[in-house]
C-alpha cells in the first residue's frame, strides 16, 4: 500500500486551480440565486447584477487560489461599506429630502434598525417586552425581527466574524486603515488595557438604554450617524450631539485607523463588537495557532486590527475572544502557523489525509487529493461568511452601482 505524505507544514494554504474553480462555482450558484433570479432585483440592470456576481466570484477564487484571505476580504468589505453608505444616503434623500431623522420618520416607525440598536433594545425587551427603537417590527428592510433573526443566524455560524464580513460600518474604518501607507505612525500596542474598553462601552450602552428607556448610544455616540441619518441641528442639544458623533467618527473611523493601521472604531468603541465577542465560543470556527510552529515573531499581534492577538493568545494557541475572523494574522504569519479550525473536527488542508489509502477502484487519487483541499475549515468559514456578506449586499450594492452610473450620466445619485 502506497502511503502518501501529509501536506507539509511549510506549504502555503493555496489551492489548486481545479479546487478553486469547483469551490467558486459552488459559491456562485448560491449568490446567483439572489442576484440574478430574485424578483426584488428586477428593476436593476442585469449587467450590473452579473458584474457584481463576477466580482465576488473573482475575489472568492483569488482567496482560494492564493490562500490570502484578508487581502481580498478587505476589498469586498470596504466596497460593501462604501456602497452601503451611498445607497443609504441616496435613499434617504429620495424619501425625506435630507439625511435628517425626522419626527415623522420616527412616528411612522420608519427608522432602520441595526445591530447596535438591537443590542441596546435587548434588556428593555426582556423586562418590558417593549422595543425602545422607532423601527418596524416586521416587513421589508431593516426591521426589528429581521435584524434579530439575522443576528441569531450570523452569531451562531460565524460569531464575531460578523464584524469583518457582514457589518455595514466596519468596512469604513478598515478602508481608512489601508490609507496612508503601511507605516504605523501611532502604536497602540503599549496600551494593554485598551482592548477591554469596548466592554466598558458595551456595559455603558446597555445600562443607559435600560435606565433612560431609549437607545442612548444611538442618540449621542454612534459615529455612523455621520454616514446614515441624524437629528436636524435645531438647538444646543442637537448641536452638541452632532459635534460628539461627528468627532467620534472623524477620530475613530478616519484619523486613528490611518495612524494606527487598526480598526479603532470596531476594536475600541463598538459595543456590538464587544457583545459579539461573547458568542465567539458558541460558533464552530476558531483561529488556532500551531504553538510548535510559532517562532514568537509577534507579527500577528502587530497586525491584528481588533487587538485580539496577545502574547497570552500565542501561549494558549488560540486568538482572543474579540477575534473577528478577518484572516490578517493568517495571511501574515511567516511560518503559516495560524489557520481556521472547526471545533472538534480536524479538517484543514494541512491535516487532511484523504490520500493516505490507495484503495484502487474506490477513489481516484487525483480527486482524493482535491478532497484534501476542499474539505477545509477555511473553505467553510469563508464560504459561510462571504455568502452572508454577499447576500446581505444584494440589497444595496447593485442599486448603489446603478446610482453611481446614474451620477456619471446625469449628475445625480437619485434614481427617482
Amino acid at each position: 500500500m502506497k502511503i502518501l505524505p501529509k501536506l507539509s507544514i511549510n506549504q502555503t494554504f493555496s489551492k489548486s486551480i481545479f479546487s478553486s474553480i469547483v469551490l467558486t462555482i459552488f459559491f456562485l450558484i448560491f449568490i446567483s440565486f439572489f442576484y440574478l433570479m430574485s424578483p426584488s432585483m428586477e428593476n436593476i440592470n442585469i449587467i450590473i447584477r452579473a458584474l457584481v456576481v463576477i466580482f465576488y466570484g473573482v475575489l472568492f477564487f483569488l482567496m482560494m487560489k492564493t490562500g490570502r484571505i484578508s487581502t481580498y476580504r478587505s476589498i469586498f468589505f470596504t466596497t460593501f461599506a462604501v456602497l452601503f453608505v451611498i445607497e443609504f444616503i441616496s435613499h434617504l434623500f429620495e424619501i425625506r429630502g435630507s439625511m435628517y431623522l425626522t419626527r415623522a420618520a420616527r412616528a411612522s416607525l420608519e427608522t432602520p434598525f441595526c445591530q447596535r440598536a438591537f443590542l441596546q433594545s435587548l434588556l428593555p425587551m426582556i423586562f418590558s417586552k417593549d422595543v425602545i427603537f422607532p423601527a418596524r417590527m416586521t416587513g421589508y428592510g431593516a426591521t426589528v425581527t429581521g435584524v434579530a433573526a439575522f443576528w441569531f443566524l450570523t452569531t451562531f455560524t460565524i460569531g464575531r466574524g460578523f464584524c469583518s464580513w457582514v457589518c455595514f460600518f466596519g468596512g469604513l474604518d478598515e478602508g481608512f486603515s489601508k490609507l496612508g501607507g503601511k507605516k504605523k505612525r501611532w502604536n497602540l500596542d503599549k496600551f494593554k488595557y485598551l482592548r477591554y474598553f469596548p466592554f466598558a462601552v458595551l456595559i455603558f450602552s446597555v445600562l443607559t438604554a435600560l435606565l433612560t428607556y431609549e437607545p442612548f448610544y444611538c442618540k449621542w455616540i454612534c459615529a455612523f450617524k455621520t454616514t446614515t441619518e441624524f437629528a436636524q441641528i435645531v438647538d444646543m442639544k442637537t448641536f452638541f450631539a452632532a459635534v460628539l458623533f461627528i468627532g467620534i467618527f472623524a477620530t475613530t473611523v478616519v484619523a486613528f485607523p490611518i495612524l494606527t493601521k487598526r480598526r479603532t472604531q470596531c476594536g475600541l468603541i463598538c459595543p456590538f463588537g464587544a457583545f459579539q465577542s461573547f458568542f465567539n465560543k458558541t460558533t464552530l470556527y476558531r483561529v488556532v495557532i500551531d504553538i510548535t510552529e510559532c517562532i514568537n515573531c509577534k507579527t500577528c499581534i502587530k497586525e491584528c486590527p481588533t487587538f485580539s492577538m496577545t502574547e497570552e493568545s500565542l501561549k494558549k494557541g488560540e486568538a482572543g475572544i474579540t477575534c473577528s475572523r478577518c484572516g490578517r494574522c493568517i495571511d501574515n504569519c511567516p511560518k503559516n502557523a495560524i489557520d481556521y479550525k472547526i471545533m472538534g473536527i480536524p479538517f484543514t488542508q494541512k491535516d487532511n489525509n484523504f490520500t493516505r489509502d490507495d484503495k484502487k477502484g474506490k477513489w481516484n487519487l487525483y480527486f482524493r487529493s482535491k478532497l484534501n483541499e476542499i474539505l477545509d475549515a477555511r473553505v467553510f468559514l469563508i464560504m459561510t461568511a462571504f455568502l452572508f456578506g454577499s447576500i446581505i449586499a444584494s440589497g444595496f450594492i447593485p442599486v448603489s452601482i446603478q446610482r453611481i452610473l446614474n451620477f456619471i450620466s446625469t449628475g445625480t445619485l437619485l434614481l427617482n
Partner: protein
Amino acid sequence: MRKIKIILMFILVILVFFSVPVYFIGYYEAFGNFMIETLGINISPALSGGEVMAVFNDSYYDDKGTGSYTYSEAEVFQPYSGHLDILKYIVKKPVHGKAWNDVNEFWAMEVVMGSLTNPLKAPAGFSFPVINIYISIDGKEGGSIKSLFPGVNIAFDPEHPWHYVVTVNGWEVDGKLYNSNGEYVDRVLIDIIKKKDREDRLRFTVPIEKAPELYALTEKDTTYHYVLTGSYDPVESGNFRSILQKESKISGGGNPEPEIAPMIYDYLAPDGMDQYKILSGYNSKKQKYAVLKPVKVSMGVGVEKKEIVKQLTEEDEKKYEISRKTEVNKSIDQLEKALNDNIDEETMTMLAVLYFQNGENEQAEILLKKILQNKDVNNSAALAYLGAITAKKAADAAGNIAKMRILAEAMTMLDKAAADVKSDSIDVVHVLMCRANVYSIIPDIYNKTDTVIADMEKLTVILADSSLNELKADAAIMLGGAYARKRMFKAAVDQYHSALKTVQNEYYSKKLKDKIAEAELLYLDKIITNL
C-alpha cells in the same frame, strides 16, 4: 472515526450552505410573527403613539355634509371627493413617561382620511382638510356647547359639553389645543404616519402636561369626542371654508341655508346615527344650529372586536345555487341534444364550460381534451378550463407531492392559455377568470396574488363598457379578495364598493356587503396589531 468525521462534515455543510439562503428566502417573517404574537414583543407604545384604545369607522364617500354638499369647483380639489372624508378615528392610550419624542407625556389621536394629498405644498404635508376634535370629559363641570369658531354653525350635545378642542390644518406646522374658555393651551404635534401598503394617517400628539384635566385621566374615566372636518380656507372663521348654495372657486356648494347650516363636510357620527340627519338637524326658523352627538371613548377599555352579522345567509346561498344550476342544466340539455360528431368547436366549448360550472368535471374534461386534440390545439379557453379542472384534481389528490405535481401541470396550462389568448377575443374573459379563480385559492407560497390582481385589472378594463354586471362583480370580488390577501384592505373595500354600485342582483349585493364588512374588520385588526 473517519465516518463520524464525514457525517459531522456533512451536517456542517447543511448548516452552512442552507441556513443562509433559507433565512433570506423569507423565514424571518415567521420569526417576526413569533416575536409579536407568541412572545408579545412590540415597539414601545411611547414610540408608536400609545396602545390603540378605540377605533371608529366612518362611512366611505360621506364627505357631503348634510348629504348635498359639494366641494369647491377649483380644479385642485379634483376628484372632488375623499380629501375631506374621515374614514377612521383612532384613539390611543395616553402615554406618561420618557420617549424618544418631542414630548414625553402625551395623548395621541389618529385620523385616516379618504385621501391625504398635498398639491399646494402645505407645510404640514396636507393641503385640504381642517380637522377639529372636541373632547368632553364625563363628569367634569363646565365646558361649552358652542363651537369655538362661530361661523361653523354647529352646537354640541348639552349632555356632553366639550372641555378641550384640538384644531389642525395643513398650513400650520403644529396644531393647537384650546380649552372651553377659548384659551390657547399648547401646540399639538402633527405627523403623517406613512406605512407601506397602508393609507397614510394623520397623528395628532396632544401634550397633556399643560392640560390638567387630560393629564389626570385614568382608566375609570370616560371621554366623548366630536370629530369633524371642513375645507381649509385661510380667511374664514376657524379656517372652515364657506359652503354656499352654489359651489364656486372659493366656496363649496349644495347648502340651501348657508347662514344656519353647518360648514362641515364630514363628521364622525356615533353607531346607529346618521350623519346626514344630524347635520340637517338645524332649524332656520328658530335659528338653531345642528346639534352634534359625540362618540364615546372609555379610557380603560381596549378595542372591542366587532362581529360581522352576515347578510348573505346559507339559505340565500342555496337558493342562488339552485337557480344557477337550473339555468345551467337547461342550457346543458339544449346543447346535449345538438351533440354529435359534427358539433362545432364553439358549441363544444360552451358545453364543456357548462359541465364545469355544474361540477361535472369528468364530462367537461373529455370534451375539452377532444377540442384540444381534434379541433383546435390553440383553443385558449379550453386549455384554461382544462387547467382549472386539473387544479381541482390537485386539491383532491392524495399526498402533498402529488398535489404539487398536478398543480404545477395546471399552472402551466393556465399560464400558456393566458399567454396565447388573443386580447380581443371573448376567450380572454374565460382564461383570466379561470386563472384568477385557481391562483386566488392556491397557497401563498406560490406567490400568485399579483397575477390575480393584474388579470382582474385587465378584465375590469375589458368589461368596462359591457352590461355583464354579474361578471363585473365577480371580477371586482376576485380583485378585492386579492387585495385583501395582500392586506391592502382599503383597496379591497374600494373594489367591493365599485361592484356594489353596478349590481342589482340581491345575492351579489348581500355578498358584497359582507365582503366589505369583512375587509373593514380585517383592516381594523391590521391597525391594531401593526402599530
